[in-house]
């Protein structure tokens, strides 16, 4: 019976049903065949989204959108250009630097690719960089977003398991920085193959102005992080504080945001959130069915029956998540697989916080893995080249991501150091 459910789900997914509806249709079929009362559909949807931590998701999305409309993207890019523009491969470094700074605002990789890419890809092409390289740098660097806090996938992981959002946010910080630094190293190495012009060195005054301009965006990340860590706010409260802060900065400091534009930004953020919450609600229904069928237990027993070796289990889980992440949207994959695999991971002694970072990292690597990496699609459509060209140019960056994944998987301190320092 459960095989039929999985089969229907996969068929729907491949036929381009929205992922949330693919889950729901396969569940509906199961419910009808099993003669379960259909009221379970709205009931599980409601209980799935009636979770206080989830309230932070529209908050963080709205704060990111407000900052973006307030002109922060251009200011972050300008600042990164002032710092890196004069060195060889400067614009690609600026692109990565901008993504790392922007990560603290948006929390999702696809929006990073779209926002940074729409400015940086044409700018890099104009300066002589090849289009495939410009797209590859943008797609790769935007994957830092869901790792560096605030991170929507980390909130989802916390909701599924009851882990602390604050700890998960902190746990992602060092791996995110490692990923960014790795990309910078590769970009420096690849820069000599790019027929680009170097920009003139910025004056101290320009750099200082850049610091002042981006300071307000960076401050938001610190307010969120230290508000949660210091016990001043819950994650939901932190997200609303971020909304008010972003609105204030956009309206009165950057003055690029108008009161008239606010309703449209709020609506856009809630439409994005609604599509995510419907996915969460239907995944709650699927989770309930899987538990009823004892599938998590069966998978756990099956995996542990093969081996109880921690290293082998981690290799196995990484492979599953990498393959799934390549084909499936991050949040959907996380909702379906994370609780099941966490059970296995905890049994062999892996810290749940470290495992959450490993799982999210695996799934976001999928965003830049051919053939269906979403960030590759977005970048290639901005650069107006084929996804194959971006994939080939992005291969060195993919290797960096996999290297960081290995480090994070086998050196727990990378993800556990900061939560240990601030929480325990």
């Amino acid at each position: 019976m459960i095989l039929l459910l999985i089969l229907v789900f996969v068929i729907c997914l491949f036929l381009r049903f929205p992922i949330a509806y693919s889950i729901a249709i396969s569940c509906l079929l199961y419910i009808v065949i099993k003669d379960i009362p259909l009221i379970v559909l709205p009931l599980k949807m409601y209980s799935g989204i009636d979770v206080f931590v989830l309230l932070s998701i529209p908050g963080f999305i709205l704060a990111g959108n407000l900052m973006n409309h307030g002109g922060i993207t251009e200011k972050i890019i300008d600042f990164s250009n002032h710092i890196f523009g004069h060195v060889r491969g400067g614009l690609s470094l600026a692109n990565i630097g901008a993504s790392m700074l922007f990560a603290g605002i948006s929390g999702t990789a696809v929006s990073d690719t779209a926002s940074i890419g729409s400015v940086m890809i044409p700018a890099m092409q104009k300066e002589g960089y090849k289009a495939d390289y410009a797209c590859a740098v943008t797609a790769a660097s935007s994957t830092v977003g869901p790792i560096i806090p605030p991170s929507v996938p980390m909130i989802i992981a916390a909701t599924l398991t009851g882990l602390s959002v604050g700890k998960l946010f902190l746990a992602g910080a060092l791996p995110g920085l490692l990923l960014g630094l790795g990309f910078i190293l590769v970009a420096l190495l690849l820069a000599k193959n790019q027929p680009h012009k170097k920009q003139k060195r910025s004056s101290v005054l320009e750099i200082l102005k850049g610091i002042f301009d981006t300071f307000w965006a960076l401050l938001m990340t610190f307010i969120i992080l230290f508000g949660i860590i210091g016990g001043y706010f819950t994650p939901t409260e932190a997200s609303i504080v971020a909304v008010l802060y972003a609105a204030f900065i956009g309206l009165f400091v950057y003055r690029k945001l108008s009161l008239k534009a606010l309703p449209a930004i709020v609506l856009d953020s809630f439409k994005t959130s609604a599509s995510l919450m419907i996915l969460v609600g239907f995944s709650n229904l699927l989770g309930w069915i899987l538990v009823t069928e004892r599938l998590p237990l069966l998978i756990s027993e099956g995996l542990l029956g093969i081996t109880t070796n921690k290293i082998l289990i981690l290799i196995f889980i990484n492979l599953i998540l990498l393959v799934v992440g390549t084909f499936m949207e991050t949040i959907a994959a996380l909702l379906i697989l994370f609780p099941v695999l966490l059970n296995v991971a905890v049994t062999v002694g892996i810290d749940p916080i470290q495992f959450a970072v490993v799982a999210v990292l695996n799934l976001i690597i999928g965003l830049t893995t051919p053939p269906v990496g979403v960030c590759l699609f977005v970048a290639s459509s901005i650069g107006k080249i084929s996804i194959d060209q971006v994939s080939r140019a992005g291969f060195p960056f993919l290797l960096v991501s996999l290297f960081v994944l290995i480090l994070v998987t086998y050196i727990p301190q990378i993800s556990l150091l900061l939560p240990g320092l601030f929480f325990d």
Partner: protein
Amino acid sequence: MKENGRIDQKFLEWGTLIGAFGLIFTVVLQIVTRRFFTEQAPSWTEEASRFFFIYAISFAAGLAQKEDYFVSMDYFYRKFGHRVRQSLDIAITFLSLVLFLVMSIYSVQFILLGTVETSPSLGLPMSIAFISMLIMSGSILYYLAIQLILQLKALSK
């Protein structure tokens, strides 16, 4: 249909905005009362913010359907020819419509179930909160029906 389109869209947009600003207001109230007036925020603020959140999401769901916010995987779909894609689009819309029709019908039953329950802090009948599920599924159903009509018209051309 155009006039109706504007009215229903405005209705959903206003519902989303009221829910969103209600959520922001109650969470701010929660922070302010806890930091400046009492040690603990009034428990009703958490419940009210959850209600506002669910309503905002439910009103926005139909708009998300209308404007194609739901993520899907189109790697294989793009390999099909135009005619196959057109037929596939109709099948997807039709099956999704069936899903949300069932969901809408059972949301009514869910609301009735909520009449005998009250929320712990606000003391409101839970059916008030459960109405959001009917708004969510009903509005998605509505836009799917319009989409299906348009797809069938395009196919007949």
